[in-house]
Each structure stands twice: as structure tokens, then as C-alpha cells.
């Protein structure tokens, strides 16, 4: 097959780029809206369910190799300091210690734009100072306490709003604040000057910690020149690139594996310092090395969702929104980028005059990393509350106000037409399911005299189109079973299952005949499992690989059965010809062990269109006005994501997004001690992730209309959408219940009580 170069627009977490890929052969038309599919679109329990419930599923943390050494990392206790001297003599004297690495002895290893792993100037509490490899983790933990470090303390700033001040300690020469995004539509300045109804408010969101249950970590083993890395990651190929950059060894000699992984939520996008440290130690010491972070380390040095400070000014003209200005400052810590919270403001509603600015603020804290819909959760929290505040001011139902601004057919940012947009359908389904007609502008009485009830809703905008490059191969065995090999990973979203469904559907097999092998750089490339792009990127390539295998199978069967290929089809594991079924094993079994290998690649997205996902969340809450406690009673989550490949796993993903959103809006908040720059609750005891008792009734609905212009399976992404609108929907419901608004997330009891006391 000939190879063609394709280019396509890609939107990754709000940033639009152009991607280049190579494709082979021709694409298929999308399965139609009324296609009769037997496996795709049906509820199927996960194909890896047995491995997960028996403890057999092997995660990176479960990789124990013979002779393996364990690493623990010494981290800076100071938010900013120069490392003047490191004395390792006492640590090296401890029996069982095999090596210590620090800035004065570690080999050069480029890492994310820096030349070494261990900085001469540590920049946050938790920054890497030294690492110890020892026979056991206990010895390594003892040894890091025996390392003597001479620090020269430097001025720092460990708070977003403090760092924004003109007189703040400058952490970078050009200052702590830099612009990182802007968008203008129409003339916002003039629009505000001609509007009489203007609402302005300030919103704040707190730093959210991922707390993936499996912490970041890697195991490295050298066999001669060949390095194998087991890593808990969302992108094995990203880890490979990071290892290559740091160690300067060829791809030929690097293999990265991630079979099962215990959550990432955006934070596991590539090689970590722990990866490089494990690889360096393993090479120096000639033994496999494991470097896995503790929970505390995870919460200091493995990323977070930036805290934000946002101001929104919004104006009405009659019953329409005339202008909006949204400015946002994000705490990037020591990160080099920010997730832009103004994305939803730029593109969600049909507003003629828009002005947005977003700023990165550096602080002496750990770097941010992407966290499920980075920026969009924070931004929607501000935007969709501002919409409600304006609706209240003009005496309009907030859902009606949104409906009036939800019908635009083109994307305000790119000017391109949407391939499909069913936002209004989301509103209609959600309003019916929650019982929106019960909402009163002043809230209603709750289930007890001191409880008030309220309803709120918010909208969701996200990309999720997927794009090239992504590749897959399908190996069809002579017994009629198949193995899909693809370099993507299943981070808990059900990727293995939905890809198996696509293979079974296209190749004509029973689902049980398909095994899926993922998370191995010895497969062909697949993109990072992030940005809601996995199914839409990889799924179409998998379908083409299965089709290629089917075509070759039909050719082979035609010869073996002596029937013209056009008179044959494959159906549920058998060749069907003139009403006669011959199981694949019988057909291919006639030849000695021939494996059919089908290949597939992801073709570009359609020209001249923009592909988005939409949705809406509705919340019904009660608030106890004596204690300030918020009780979420019911959440309705409606999403427009194109074709739903597996309604069972899709619903699970939505419930999970809703629950993570509840954590964001009600309980999760990293607390930093400003005078020392230390994180006070980097654990699962005092950092409050939701428990089973915090879960309300959740109703999940999908529009489930295939986006047949998007790609050959008609599906878009679902990972991020279900967390985006939930916090704003709950905040709006709380405001409806108690008549005052809490503009800071999380909406804790204390903040509710403070708001109630301020009530006019």
C-alpha cells in the first residue's frame, strides 16, 4: 500500500495545532446513523474485568524483578534555596545503600528543557535534591535522612494572589505574571459602554490534587544496551521520547511498557524525573531499579490543577448577552505553561462581543500538570456562574438565557462550522430529567425548616475530535481468534473493551475472540491517552486494521473454499457463503498457521469543519443554613459526544467525572502554609477526595447521535466532558437555594456561612 502524508487541525486541551501523520490505503465511510451494528453501541462488561477483580492485573507498582533495587528521593524542605553542598558519606555508610545521586555527581540528563535532573537552585518544597538506591525501600528511606545538605535560602512566594502583587518577590527576571492567551471578538469595550445592565464578579478556584491511586513511578532494567521501562503512564511513546532525550540512546534500545495503570487524570503524560533516575541507577549499578513516589511526594511534585483568580464582566442588552470580558490568572507553580480557563468563554455561547485574557503566574510551588479538562473546569465555574448572575439581574430563567445563546452553527474562535452540535438537545433532556419546572427564582423550602433547596445548571464545551497519527494492527490467528496490537493505553476508561468491540464489529468476530494488547512501544504509535482523544484517534485506525484483516481473510477464504470473494462475508466468527456458515478455524485451519495481519491508520479530520463535544449538567441541592453544609441530591449529566461505543463503560466514565467535579466544588483544596511554602495536606487524610458517602443520585444521558462527518466510527471523546460543567451547576444550585452566591471553590461550610452573613 502506498503511504500518504496528511495534515489536520487538532485541538488538544483547548490549544489548536496542526498535526502531520502518514496514512496507508483509504479511509472508510463512517458507520451511518442507522447502521445495524451488533457489537458496537451495546453494553459490554470490560474485556479485562477478570484480570482486574482477581488481582492479576499487573500495574507498574506490582513489577518486582529479581535483584531489584529501590529508590527514595530526598526533596527540598525549602521553597527556594541554592544547594551549596551535599554530603553523602553517612548515607553511603548505611549497609544496603548502593548509590546516591545528586547535582554534583549525576550525569547530565536533559529533562523538560533543563540540563539536569537535580537543580542547583531548588524551587519548591518537594523539588528533587538527591536520590538513594538501596536493597530495600526501608533502607533507602533511612538513607535519605542521613544526607547532609547545605542550603542557601532564597526569597520565595507561595501564594497566587501574593505573587500577582507588584511588590511581590520576583521569581523570574521579567516578573511573576505573563500573558498566555488572548481572544477578541467584536468590540467589547464599546459594547460595555453602551450597556446599562452590567454584572461584575470575581471567582476563585483552589488547587486540586490529582491523587491518582497509583502514584507516579517507574521500574527500569538494562539488558546490555537495551533498556526496558515499566511506567504508570498515559503515554508510553511520550516516556520513550523523554528517555531518549535524557539518556541519548536510540529508540531501537528503548522499550516502554504500561499494561495496567492506576489513574492519571492528565498528570502522567511522559517520563518523570523518577524514570530517568531509575534508568541512570539501573545502568550504573547493573540491577533493575524501582522508583515509585510516596503519597506525600505525589502531592508535592507530580502536578496539580492550578488555583485561579478570575474576573468576569458581563453585559445584557434586552434579553440577550451583549458582551463579556473574562480575565484569569492561574498559579502555574514552577510549570512552564498554563491551562487556559477562558476557552469556554471564547467558544461556548453566542455572544457578539468577547474579550478574554489569561495570565500565567509563577510561584514557589510544584508545577501544574494537566488535570481532566484543565482550564475548562475552572473557567466554566466562573463563566456559567456569571451567566446565572446576569440572568438573575434581568429576571430571566438561566436555562432560557442559555438556550438563546446556544444555537450558533459556527465556532466563534475558528469561524468553522460544527460537524454536529446538539447542545439544545442536552438542555431539553436535562431539564426534563431534573424537573427544571420546580425551580423557583428564590429557591424553595427543603426537607427540613433549616434546609433550602435549589436547582442549577451549566453547559459544557470541549474538543474531543481525535486526530492522526494513530496506528493499529490486527493479527487474525488460524483458529479464528484475533489480537489487536496498538500503542495506546487503557488508563481506566475502558479503552481495551471499546477497541475490542470495534475489531469484533468490523472483522465479524465474537467479542470474546478478540484480545487487546496495549501499552507497549514495540507496537505502532498511538497518541497520549488524554484530552478525550483516545477513542476518536485510535478507534478509526483500529477499524481500518480490522477491515484490512477482513479483506485479506476473504481473499484467503475465497481461494480455500473456491468461491468468489464477493459471495463471501464474515459473520460472528464464520465465513458465510450462500447461507452456509463455516467457522473461521475450519477455513484457515486448512493451511498451516498463517496469520492474517491487518494494518490501519488514522485519517485526517474533515476539512472546513470543527469538531466539538457539548453537554449540560443539572443539579438539585439542599443547603443547611445553620451549618453551611451542601447536600447534592441529584445530578443529571447529558452529553453529546457522537456515537457511544459502549453505553456501560461510558456511563461509568460520566459518573466518575461528576464525582471528581463534586470533589472540586465541595471538598478538595490543597492548603499551603504561606510562611514556609509547605503543603499541609498532601495526603488522603486531610485532602478530601469524595468517598462513597458523598455520592448523590446521578442520572446519565447521551444524545447518542453519531457524528458521521467526524471519522469512520462517528465517535468523539468523553474523558473530560463530564467534569467540566458540574462545579458551576452545583454552585448555581447553591446560589439558587440560599439567595447568595459563593464564588470560591470549594464551597465549604465556612464559605457558605460567610456568604450567608454577608446577605443584604
Amino acid at each position, binding site marked *: 500500500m502506498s503511504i500518504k502524508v496528511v495534515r489536520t487541525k487538532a485541538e488538544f486541551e483547548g490549544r489548536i495545532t496542526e498535526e502531520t501523520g502518514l496514512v496507508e490505503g483509504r479511509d472508510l465511510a463512517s458507520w451511518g446513523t442507522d447502521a445495524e451494528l451488533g457489537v458496537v453501541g451495546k453494553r459490554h*462488561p470490560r474485556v479485562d474485568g477478570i484480570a482486574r*477483580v482477581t488481582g492479576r492485573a499487573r500495574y507498574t507498582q506490582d513489577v518486582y524483578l529479581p535483584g531489584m533495587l529501590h529508590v527514595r528521593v530526598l526533596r527540598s524542605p525549602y521553597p527556594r534555596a541554592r544547594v551549596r553542598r551535599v554530603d553523602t558519606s553517612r548515607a553511603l555508610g548505611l549497609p544496603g545503600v548502593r548509590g546516591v545521586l545528586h547535582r554534583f555527581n549525576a550525569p547530565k540528563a536533559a529533562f523538560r528543557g533543563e540540563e539536569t535532573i537535580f537543580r542547583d537552585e531548588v524551587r519548591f518544597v518537594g523539588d528533587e535534591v538527591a536520590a538513594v538506591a538501596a536493597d530495600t525501600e526501608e533502607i533507602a528511606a533511612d538513607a535519605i535522612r542521613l544526607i547532609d545538605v547545605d542550603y542557601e535560602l532564597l526569597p520565595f512566594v507561595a501564594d497566587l494572589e501574593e505573587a500577582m502583587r507588584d511588590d511581590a518577590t520576583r521569581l523570574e527576571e521579567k516578573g511573576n505574571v505573563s500573558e498566555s492567551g488572548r481572544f477578541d471578538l467584536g468590540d467589547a469595550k464599546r459594547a460595555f459602554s453602551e450597556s446599562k445592565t452590567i454584572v461584575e464578579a470575581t471567582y476563585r478556584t483552589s488547587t486540586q490534587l490529582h491523587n491518582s491511586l497509583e502514584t507516579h513511578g517507574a521500574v527500569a532494567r538494562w539488558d546490555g544496551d537495551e533498556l526496558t521501562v515499566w511506567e504508570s503512564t498515559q503515554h508510553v511513546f511520550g516516556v520513550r521520547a523523554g528517555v531518549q532525550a535524557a539518556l541519548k540512546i536510540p529508540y531501537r534500545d528503548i522499550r516502554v511498557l504500561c499494561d495496567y495503570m492506576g489513574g492519571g487524570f492528565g498528570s502522567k503524560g511522559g517520563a518523570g524525573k523518577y524514570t530517568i533516575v531509575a534508568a541512570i541507577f539501573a545502568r550504573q549499578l547493573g540491577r533493575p531499579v524501582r522508583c515509585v513516589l510516596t*503519597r506525600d511526594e505525589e502531592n508535592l511534585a507530580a502536578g496539580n490543577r492550578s488555583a485561579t483568580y478570575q474576573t468576569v464582566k458581563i453585559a445584557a442588552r434586552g434579553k440577550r448577552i451583549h458582551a463579556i470580558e473574562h480575565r484569569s490568572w492561574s498559579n502555574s507553580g514552577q510549570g512552564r505553561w498554563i491551562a487556559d480557563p477562558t476557552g469556554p468563554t471564547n467558544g461556548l455561547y453566542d455572544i457578539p462581543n468577547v474579550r478574554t485574557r489569561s495570565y500565567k503566574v509563577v510561584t514557589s510551588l510544584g508545577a501544574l500538570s494537566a488535570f481532566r479538562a484543565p482550564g475548562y473546569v475552572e473557567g466554566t465555574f466562573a463563566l456559567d456562574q456569571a451567566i446565572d448572575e446576569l440572568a438573575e439581574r434581568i429576571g430571566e430563567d438561566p436555562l432560557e438565557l442559555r438556550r438563546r445563546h446556544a444555537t450558533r452553527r459556527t465556532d466563534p474562535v475558528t469561524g468553522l462550522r460544527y460537524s454536529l452540535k446538539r447542545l439544545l438537545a442536552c438542555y431539553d433532556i436535562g431539564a426534563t430529567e431534573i424537573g427544571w419546572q420546580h425551580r423557583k427564582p428564590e429557591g424553595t423550602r427543603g426537607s427540613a425548616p433549616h434546609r433550602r433547596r435549589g436547582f442549577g445548571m451549566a453547559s459544557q464545551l470541549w474538543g474531543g475530535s481525535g486526530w492522526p497519527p494513530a496506528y493499529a494492527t490486527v493479527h487474525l490467528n488460524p483458529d479464528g481468534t484475533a489480537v489487536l496490537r496498538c500503542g495506546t493505553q487503557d488508563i481506566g476508561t475502558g479503552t481495551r473493551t471499546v477497541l475490542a468491540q470495534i475489531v469484533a464489529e468490523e472483522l465479524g468476530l465474537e467479542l470474546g475472540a478478540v484480545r487487546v494488547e496495549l501499552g507497549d512501544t514495540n507496537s505502532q504509535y498511538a497518541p497520549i491517552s488524554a484530552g478525550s482523544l483516545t477513542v476518536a484517534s485510535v478507534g478509526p485506525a483500529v477499524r481500518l486494521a480490522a477491515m484490512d484483516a477482513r479483506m485479506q481473510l476473504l481473499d484467503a477464504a475465497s481461494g480455500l473454499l473456491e468461491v468468489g470473494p464477493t459471495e463471501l462475508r464474515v459473520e460472528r466468527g464464520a465465513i458465510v457463503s450462500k447461507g452456509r456458515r463455516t467457522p473461521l478455524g475450519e477455513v484457515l485451519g486448512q493451511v498451516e498457521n498463517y496469520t492474517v495481519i491487518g494494518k490501519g491508520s488514522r485519517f485526517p479530520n474533515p476539512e472546513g469543519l470543527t469538531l466539538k463535544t457539548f453537554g449540560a449538567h443539572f443539579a438539585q441541592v439542599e443547603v443547611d443554613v445553620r451549618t453551611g453544609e451542601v447536600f447534592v441530591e441529584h445530578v443529571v449529566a447529558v452529553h453529546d459526544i457522537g456515537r457511544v461505543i459502549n453505553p456501560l463503560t461510558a456511563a461509568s466514565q460520566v459518573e466518575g467525572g461528576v464525582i*471528581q467535579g463534586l470533589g472540586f466544588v465541595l471538598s478538595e483544596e490543597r492548603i499551603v502554609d504561606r510562611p514556609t511554602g509547605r503543603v499541609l495536606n498532601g495526603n488522603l487524610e486531610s485532602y478530601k477526595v469524595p468517598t462513597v458517602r458523598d*455520592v448523590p443520585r446521578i442520572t446519565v444521558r447521551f444524545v447518542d447521535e453519531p457524528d458521521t462527518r467526524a471519522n469512520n466510527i462517528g465517535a468523539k471523546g468523553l474523558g473530560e466532558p463530564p467534569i467540566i460543567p458540574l462545579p458551576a451547576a452545583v454552585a448555581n444550585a447553591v446560589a439558587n437555594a440560599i439567595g447568595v452566591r459563593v464564588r470560591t471553590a470549594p464551597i465549604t461550610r465556612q464559605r457558605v456561612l460567610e456568604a450567608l452573613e454577608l446577605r443584604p
Partner: protein
Amino acid sequence: MGHVPKTPQFIGPGAVDVAFEVNGDGVSVHVPPHRTLLDTLRETLGLTGAKRVCDEGTCGACTILLDGEPVYSCMTLAVACAGRAVETVEGLSTERGLHPVQEAFIEHDAFQCGFCTPGQIMSCVGLLRHTSSPTADDVLRAVSGNLCRCGAYPNIVAAALSAAKKQARR
């Protein structure tokens, strides 16, 4: 849980021999007195089903059954298990098939990344040992010490209730 561990009075400081039962088989391990049951299961016995997530008794991912009661194995010393019976997720299924709780977890999609799953399952199994027909509130109580960051909670509760029903029919 309510057990007072029968910790031997004078042992250590070096490694000591400890004999106990794991999933019905007798085992003997040579471990320092401060080694947790979790680390012993994972590193010495190769049973990696129980997970180390917080290592301080707040998340439940290391839950196993000790003499039939769910306990956090990161908060249990191996030496405190001498002569006692430990059950882990690896011991639940038999040649006849999966345990009803395991089956129900698959059927109800009660996991996403699956890292908390062994602990969730052991908490549910512990519950069903004592309560043949648990209420939803019993289930909430049984798994309220098991965190799930993916948010599979609704399906976990549904799975536990369904397994209880299935078990009652058998």
C-alpha cells in the same frame, strides 16, 4: 474490626520467623518486626493484589481479611498475624469460578482504573460474611473506608447489593 492483635511481647530487633495462613495455605516468612502485612504480602509472598496507595490507613486499597474481618494491611504488622488466617483477593476465586462479588463487579462495571478494586472487593466480601441480606446503607458503611478516585462508587454499591442477592439465592 474490633480485634486486639495478639502481638508477641519480645521479638526483634532483627528479622524473625512468622507463620500464618494465606488463602488457606500455611506460610512462614522471615521479616523484621516493623514490616507491615501489606509489604510482606506484596514483596515477600508475591501477592500484589492488595495495593499500597497511602500507606497510612486512610484509603483502603490494601484491605484484606484477617480471621474473616476486613483490615488495612498497611496498618497491620506481619508479626501480629502469627497463627492467624489472611485472605487476599487472589484467594477468592476457585476452580469453579469467580466469587459472586467478583462476578458482580464485572457485571456492574464497578471499577475504572481498578487500583482500588481488590480492596473494595475484600470489604464487600467481609460484609457478606456477616450479613446475608445487607441494605444499601450496610454497603455504604462497609466500603466507606475504601477510596476510589475514578468515582466508580455507584456501581460498587450496585455490585455489592447484587452479589448479596445472588449469594442469598445459592
